[in-house]
């Protein structure tokens, strides 16, 4: 096993992106639920409640801190977590912040795996109260 976590890679830990603002539109919630095939009427109309995975749509426009493009042979999504104080609803304005919280390596059967954990926080712009959080874990595999 080779240590793939160079000084350049470990320096990514603590890197922050945002906050960036997201406006929650009922149409976007409807389209997202429709793509999943979720026909529950609570995801439709002016007072639509967002499905729990809706924050996957919160994508920053500029490049955000990540592994270098050519790092590893394969990039994969390892795990995902969402936690809520309350559901996200149409009309919300949310401040989204992303922080790289951890990078670590595991030795897999197929090669070395380097994991990156990103923590997201979702803050209600109007009240400054926390709506929820997310953890997004991706990995890069170095094939044997």
């Amino acid at each position, binding site marked *: 096993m080779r240590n793939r976590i160079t000084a350049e890679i470990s320096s990514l830990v603590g890197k922050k992106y945002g906050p960036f603002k997201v406006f929650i539109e009922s149409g*976007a919630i409807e*389209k*997202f639920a*429709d*793509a*999943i*095939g*979720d026909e*529950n009427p*609570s*995801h439709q109309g002016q007072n639509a*409640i967002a*499905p*729990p*995975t809706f924050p*996957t*749509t919160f*994508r920053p426009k500029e490049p955000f801190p990540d592994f270098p493009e050519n790092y590893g042979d394969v990039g*994969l*999504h*390892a*795990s*995902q*977590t*969402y*936690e*809520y104080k*309350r*559901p996200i609803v149409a009309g919300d304005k949310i401040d989204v912040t992303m922080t790289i919280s951890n990078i670590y390596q595991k030795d897999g059967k197929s090669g070395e795996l380097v994991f990156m954990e990103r923590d997201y926080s979702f803050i209600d712009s109007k009240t400054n109260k926390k709506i929820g959080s997310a*953890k997004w874990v991706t990995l890069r595999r170095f094939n044997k």
Partner: protein
Amino acid sequence: MKFQKNQVMPDYTKKAITKVQLVKYAGASGDFNPLHFDEEFAQKRGLKKLIAHGMLSMGFLSEYAESIFGVGKIKKIHVNFKSMVFIGEEITCYGIINSIDFYNNREFASCSIEAKNKEGNIVTSGLVEAWSK
């Protein structure tokens, strides 16, 4: 509905994943990785078929949990992506309530949830905490 420990959640099978669904999900989520809609691109990367977004399978599990506990009742959902989901697959969601717990005097159910394909391979698995009252 009353929820209790060791209660098996009724399973739920989604319609087969279509290319239209993958294109819709790409547009709605903003994940435009061509592996999800460009056959030639997928084949060049050694895949025999288009693969679904991992997050789509998590979307299925979230929908499943909300169908049981209600929309807006999810306190926490965590999943691990175990293996790829291919176009045309029918995904079945199932789960079991492990315990009934309390947070700030409010009752919630802690459940194990999984999504499997027709061959019985688990594609996505995880945990959900849902307000039960």
